[in-house]
């Protein structure tokens, strides 16, 4: 039986793992219970700072702590990090301070709270900022490992986690998880699916479906959106000659865009992009939202079939 967990739980666990480093401090904007920093707060209240529902202040409070030699991890919902975007841009990314932001409840998978709580643009907007590292892991193990690595990472980062449980795929594979390196979850020759976050699991299902039809599918977990693992993209563009990207995020500016922006310069490759098609979400259960937005394994499988017809 596959273990199920939410990526936000991996974030909460990582903060506890990092606690032995006395320079690690945790910042919250009244949502630590949801982002899972609450475990750190309970164990280390003297190193946890709640800024109330004041995201702009939290961002730059973190900047002040970073410039005083601390390693701040600040979290709130992905959508509410955007309230402090200009603070992140001017006060964190521009001076290149090692502030680590975590936006939980990213994507339409967030579900019932509706479109006001479903960030579909966070990866895009943070990706535009120089110096920023952007992570969107697919399970609690990789979230935990990547978050731990951030403590030694130079420069600011944004990590998107998700609210709801998804299958865990990296139990026992901790060594494979490195910031900036995509992971081949399944190898194949006919078409490559690059996916991140909850969409990775839909990609795996699509892969199994297509393999039964005799199609050889590569599935690559691109947990790091920026810096993009260009070597991995080049390798599978070359090997498969057809690419599908899948993400619980707008197709504008996210993983699909990042890969397309790269390939168009070096190795133009037929691509299909699965994601939110320039619209806002609705209230529904997570799986219903993926169906509504066309981010299910069926949509990904169809996109694979379609893109293969366009191969050179």
């Amino acid at each position, binding site marked *: 039986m596959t273990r199920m967990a939410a990526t936000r739980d991996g974030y909460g666990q990582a903060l506890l793992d990092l606690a032995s480093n006395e320079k690690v*401090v945790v910042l919250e904007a009244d949502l630590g219970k949801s982002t899972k920093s609450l475990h750190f707060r309970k164990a280390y209240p*003297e*190193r946890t*700072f709640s*800024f*109330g529902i*004041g995201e*702009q*202040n939290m*961002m*730059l*409070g*973190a*900047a*002040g*702590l*970073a*410039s*005083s*030699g*601390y390693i*701040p991890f600040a979290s709130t919902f992905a959508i509410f990090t955007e309230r402090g975007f*200009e*603070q992140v841009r*001017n*006060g964190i990314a*521009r*001076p290149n301070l090692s502030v680590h932001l975590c936006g939980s409840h990213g994507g339409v998978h967030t579900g019932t709270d509706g479109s006001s709580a479903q960030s579909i643009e966070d990866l895009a907007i943070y990706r535009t900022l120089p110096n920023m590292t952007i992570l969107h892991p697919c399970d609690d193990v990789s979230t935990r490992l990547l978050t731990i690595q951030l403590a030694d990472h130079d420069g600011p980062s944004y990590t998107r986690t998700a609210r709801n449980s998804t299958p865990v795929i990296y139990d026992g594979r901790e060594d494979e998880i490195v910031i900036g390196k995509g992971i081949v979850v399944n190898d194949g020759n006919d078409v490559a699916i690059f996916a991140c976050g909850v969409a990775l699991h839909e990609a795996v299902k699509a892969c199994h479906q297509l393999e039964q039809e005799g199609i050889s599918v590569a599935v690559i977990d691109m947990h790091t959106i920026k810096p993009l693992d260009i070597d991995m993209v080049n390798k599978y563009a070359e090997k498969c000659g057809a690419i599908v990207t899948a993400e619980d995020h707008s197709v504008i500016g996210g993983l699909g865009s990042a890969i397309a922006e790269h390939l168009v310069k070096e190795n133009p490759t037929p691509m299909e992009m699965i994601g939110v098609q320039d619209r806002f979400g609705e209230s529904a259960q997570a799986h219903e939202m993926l169906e509504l937005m066309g981010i299910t394994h069926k949509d990904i499988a169809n996109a694979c079939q379609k893109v293969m017809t366009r191969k050179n």
Partner: protein
Amino acid sequence: MNHKELELKSIEYRKTILDIIYKGGAGHTAGSLSCIDILNVLYNNVLNINPNNFKSNDRNRYVQSKGHTVEALYTVLCDNNFFTREELNTLNQFNSHFIGHPTRKVPGVEHNTGALGHGLSVAVGMAIGFKLDNKPYKVYTLLGDGELSEGSIWESLLSASKYKLDNLVIIIDRNGLQITGKTEEVNPIEPLLDKFISFGLCVNQVNGNSVSELDEIFKKIPFENNQPNLIIANTIKGKGISFIENQVVWHHKLPSEEEYNRAIQELNKQLENFK
């Protein structure tokens, strides 16, 4: 420095501000003139920040939240030997680090500011850091009065009170003007004293263009234990040059050659009278 020496510095600093703005072709003239006495006292008598200790964590901090009056900051940093006057003369020029708002690329600048409403949050983070470290240093930050319309300022004040940051010193350059007009017409902020007191700060008011009053008030910090310190520094925007004082237009106006010469003449006269 004694008060006489500080007064002399203020006149010299005003000359430098005019000079670098005129030669650099851009700058925030009037705001730099209103806050220069505050920076003068801070850097020469209070902060003890210098090129030798700047890289150390064991020192006071100064964050200029009203980043647009960077010419005042560059002027005092230059006089405190963070860089040479030749370097400063590259202000606003292509390839110069001396851009029109504070950046950490310039030696002595603590934090990138210029987007208003930022510096106080950064200062709160630094003050929390000193509390965590159990270190006795203080964090000083200078805010504009027009800047107080930014909501993030009031978020920061809540946190400053919550964490009892008596090592935080907030100075308001209360010159009464902002880019498009009087603060009380653009977006009224009074009664300012009552607002700050109700947010849990310990507040004092001074003449922010009097180096002696500033020097004395900084000696009284912390005003109270467990309360953040706030100083309303009542200033004159454009202070020191008759035709710039209290004129809205001088927020971001570049002096013409004639205006520049007149301003320098006025300041030279102040120097002569001073001696």
